[in-house]
């Protein structure tokens, strides 16, 4: 993790309120993992005061060039959107654990709601480097204009399923409505492992099916629904979670999520959690 003034190479409006931000972070020592984020100082004054966490959207081929995808939702992101090419942004990162990608796995299902698609494209980028694998990306958005990553996901070799709340693109509904159909395609019922107890209270790593890995990022109601479906099929879900953040380094204990081990921090213990460990409040 480093703090640096990163040069803005691009900060472009790509759809209504959606921006692509590319920065050059010279001092990076370690490779960035998909799911990690940077904590960015939006302005130079005291309002907004706190940094804004933005997850890495594209890691790219050059190790010090990082791409973010963000939506302007408040003062912080508005200020970031006004910063121009050639100026510098104060960034801290990379932060967090990132998605774990088991080399043995070959079927990957990515499910995104809204801006949750941003880190999942970075994951697809990593997965695209694997030799034998299938990637299915279910992308849910409010409306057609919010779908900003379709082309990228296709280029990375993902089978793309689009769902919009208003039906302006793809199926009408939520991303989760397409999830059951996709999972059914893997024919998991036929290969039901005998050692798995039907009424297992808490699934642990040994209980999960090895065939499919599910990766999610989106609003809490979506994650809850994904968790319920995945549980039925005993599929592990790695989900990138969000919470209001203070320090970003695990010092302030602000960005707490309740897990079966107690409150854990999105910035230090996450942002990627095994959904089975989350206690929904």
């Amino acid at each position, binding site marked *: 993790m480093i*703090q640096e003034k990163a040069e803005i190479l691009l900060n472009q409006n790509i759809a209504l309120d959606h921006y692509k931000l590319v920065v050059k972070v010279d001092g990076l020592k370690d490779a960035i993992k998909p799911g990690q984020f940077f904590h960015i100082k939006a302005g130079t004054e005291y309002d907004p*005061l706190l940094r804004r966490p933005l997850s890495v959207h594209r890691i790219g081929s050059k190790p010090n060039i990082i791409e973010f995808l963000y939506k302007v939702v408040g003062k912080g992101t508005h200020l970031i959107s006004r910063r121009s090419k050639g100026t510098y942004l*104060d960034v801290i990162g990379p932060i967090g654990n990132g998605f774990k990608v088991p080399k043995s796995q070959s079927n990957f299902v990515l499910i995104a709601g809204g801006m949750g698609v941003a880190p999942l494209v970075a994951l697809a980028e990593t997965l695209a480097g694997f030799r034998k694998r299938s990637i299915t990306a279910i992308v849910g958005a409010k409306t057609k204009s919010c779908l900003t990553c379709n082309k990228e996901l296709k280029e990375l070799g993902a089978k793309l399923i689009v769902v919009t709340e208003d039906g302006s693109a793809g199926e009408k509904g939520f991303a989760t409505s397409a999830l059951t159909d996709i999972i059914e395609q893997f024919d998991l019922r036929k290969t039901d492992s005998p050692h798995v107890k039907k009424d297992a209270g808490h699934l642990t790593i040994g209980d999960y099916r090895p065939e499919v890995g599910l990766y999610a990022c989106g609003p809490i109601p979506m994650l809850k629904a994904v968790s319920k479906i995945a549980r039925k099929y005993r599929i592990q879900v790695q989900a990138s979670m969000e919470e*209001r953040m*203070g*320090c970003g380094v695990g010092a302030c*204990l602000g960005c707490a999520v309740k897990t079966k081990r107690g*409150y854990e921090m999105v910035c230090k213990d996450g942002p990627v959690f095994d959904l089975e460990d989350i206690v929904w409040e």
Partner: protein
Amino acid sequence: MGVKESTLSVGIGKLKLKSPVIAASGTFGYGEEYRELVSLSSIGGIVTKSISLKAYEGNKPPRIWETTAGMLNSIGLQNEGVGAFIESKLSDLKRLPTAVIVSIAGDQKDEFRELAKRLDKTSIDAIEINISCPNIKHKSKSRLFSQDPDATAEIVRAVRRNTKKPLITKLSPNVTDITEIAKAAERAGTDAISLINTVIGMAVDIDTKRPRLGNVTGGLSGPCIKPIALRMVWEVYNAVKVPVIGMGGIMNTEDAIEFFLCGASAIQVGTANFINPRATTEVVAGLREYLKKNKLTSIKDLIGKLKI
């Protein structure tokens, strides 16, 4: 050169600090969290996240809400308890190149007494008594111990009797007369007073009609509380003889100097660490420059030099 280096050193009772800049409790974890981002060799000390006798789970999220030039928090003193702290955190802390001040909190007097006993046997440099956290409920007639001069004195006395470590008592701004509480702490034997803790506040989501914080109310910190903090440091400086450690919204050197002029012998940097992890060390460097520019031999020449 030796003289130049010594210009920032201050004494808080028996506690000698190489510079008067301390990282505030709850904003700097246990030091290790910021290890990759800042070198602590120039700062005077760090105050740990408050430690209680038994582990505290912390409050229901959301725990943070940003406000105009500030932030509300309702963390709820989440910590693993003093036993786990001594066992797993202390040795790493002691390796930091700065003084280690351990903040203690509890919901009754006996807990503070026990915490003092346990910590007295360790190699920590000082104890800060947190009787002013707005986010925990405890057994006292007032909402916070530090809203009641008798409760304040009782706790300070209980800690004093059980440790020889330098004691700093941290006060809340949520009172009618801060000097009354400061004097009670002084009479009970504290070596220094630190202030201010956060200002109790609220924020509301008008769409859901719910409070923004899971705990309904929280503590306001950041630049927006600095004027309140300065006023209270000035009042307490004029009311007690023990040194005052000032804090509340310090973001940079200029802010810190205001606190010294109002009577602070040392200052703590809190919320600023979240925005700029190097805030403490930048203030140390800034103070050094200010002294040089103004041809002052010691930071002590600034303390309480407000011209009325």
